[in-house]
């Protein structure tokens, strides 16, 4: 039943999703190596932006805890990399993030709006500073070395996580919980009064999306090779996905993906030479998008599509009239 609805409503998405995954799969072998390496970053942020959107998109609860959940995954790998196969470590990273997210969720049951945003920001910052203190004072050193994995392995693992994220996000949107999450975002009281167990849905969705963030962190640790709290819990990892999702537009799945692509591309150009310029542009983009493009690029695209459609209709009308006058003249 679900399949039949999806088949009838969402043909474009059904094609686009496998195509996107396939495109990412073959990209590294067809593009020059330097871009191939950047694709790792693209995948990482695409996953983060998409998984962030799963919860924060429909509900409007803007979470800045992404860095914390990512960092949990990073440290899981840092501890277990040499004891377990990498796949197991990645899964455990996801599980650890799940537990942390569950805790955050249960703590923030009554916290909404700006308080929620601030709280999630504070949690990630607390995690960073606590781990920093612990590592410095109890362990003596602030950083850790992580056994590397080949770029191919990293890419493959990220690709799998990406595919899972894309499919999960799609299914969520087209099932009851997705509608309920939208309801929560529109009016939480009303949603509760029509039978939605708001608490359970919020916490579970938040925790589920965090699994993907944790797994991503676990994989990326092998890419970073050296990690410390300011790398693992880097606040940018919380902020960038938010801007990517908002810039791209949260109403469609491809929105965060486009946002991620743009900002990572920008980052790759600027980060080595002009890191401050990059962040400056980031800040400006955030201001501009929130002010003038609340629906993101998706909204622009839809309006653009609309205008194109109208032009097309006008054109066809003119053609028809032209043909008719010619036919009339002949007779």
């Amino acid at each position, binding site marked *: *039943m*679900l399949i*039949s*609805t999806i088949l009838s409503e969402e043909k474009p998405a059904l094609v686009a999703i496998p195509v996107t995954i396939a495109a990412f799969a073959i990209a590294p072998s067809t593009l020059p190596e330097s871009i191939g390496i950047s694709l790792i970053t693209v995948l990482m942020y695409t996953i983060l932006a998409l998984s962030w959107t799963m919860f924060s998109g429909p509900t409007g609860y803007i979470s800045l805890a992404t860095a914390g959940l990512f960092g949990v995954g990073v440290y899981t790998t840092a501890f277990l990399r040499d004891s377990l196969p990498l796949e197991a470590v990645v899964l455990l990273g996801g599980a650890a993030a799940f537990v942390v997210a569950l805790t955050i969720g249960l703590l923030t049951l009554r916290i909404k709006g700006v308080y929620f945003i601030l709280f999630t920001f504070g949690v990630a910052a607390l995690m960073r500073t606590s781990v920093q203190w612990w590592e410095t004072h109890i362990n003596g050193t602030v950083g850790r070395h992580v056994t590397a994995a080949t770029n191919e392995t990293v890419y493959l693992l990220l690709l799998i996580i990406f595919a899972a994220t894309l499919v999960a996000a799609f299914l969520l949107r*087209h*099932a*009851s919980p997705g*509608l*309920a999450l*939208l*309801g929560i*975002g*529109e*009016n939480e*009281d*009303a*949603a*509760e*009064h*029509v*039978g*939605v*167990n*708001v608490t359970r849905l919020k916490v579970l969705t938040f925790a589920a999306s965090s699994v993907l963030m944790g797994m991503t962190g676990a994989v990326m640790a092998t890419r970073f090779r050296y990690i410390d709290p300011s790398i693992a819990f880097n606040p940018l990892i919380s902020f960038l996905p938010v801007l990517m999702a908002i810039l791209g537009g949260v109403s469609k799945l491809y929105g965060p993906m486009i946002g991620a692509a743009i900002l990572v591309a920008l980052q790759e150009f600027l980060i080595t030479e002009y890191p401050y310029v990059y962040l400056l542009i980031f800040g400006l983009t955030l201001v501009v998008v929130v002010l003038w493009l609340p629906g993101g690029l998706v909204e622009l695209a839809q309006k653009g599509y609309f205008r194109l459609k109208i032009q097309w209709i006008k054109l066809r009308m003119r053609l028809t009239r032209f043909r008719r006058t010619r036919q009339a003249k002949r007779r």
Partner: protein
Amino acid sequence: MRMLEVRGVSHRFGGLIAVDDASFEVGQGEIVGLIGPNGAGKTTLFNLISGALRVQDGSIRFKEEDITELRPDQISRRGLARTFQTSKLFDGMTVFDNVRLALIYGNPERRFKYEEAEREVNQLIATMGILSDRNKPVRELPLASRRYLEIARALATDAEMLLLDEAMAGLTTAELQQVMQRITQLRDRGVTILIIEHVMEAILGVCDRIIVFHFGQKIAEGVPADIAADPTVRSVYLGDDT
């Protein structure tokens, strides 16, 4: 059967007593009106019944079951639904989706799946006369349609009892007549209704019984004719001292 039993319910906000030892019943199939000046505690009472506010004192029973400690979503699934004084519709969603969400989540037994709901939803929307609007986003709807949608959404949870909070405010006389008609139709189909209202002609026209509140206390209860004549009620409303 007594659909709703409110016993000794009180609620205070800090130092302010909003509801003071309220007790009343609503029988199955009745349309009962709840009236009183602004600030009399009527909406607070609704909030207590629907689970939006925690009950501090007293108990509330619905269909013979104690619902005092239950959450709003639990209460809604048991067949007690409400509308809100300030519209709490899902503004960014379509009319259809507003009802569909309620249908899916408010029906524990029928278990509507996401894709099965279409016929039921259309039926509910049609009952309230807004079928032609079903794909419009709610924010484009005129006031009367919004009211109807609120009711349709509440009904979608398979409600056996409906709490209507000032459904008539701001409506024209014609619209008022229509809403009153629909409410009577609902009762004829078996829905019990408790309605907070300020529009007197609506209350007197449609209710079997009226309960009057003032400063959080029940001060009168009876059939419309008696209430209209009751001196306490008159003095509260009209400042009558005769």
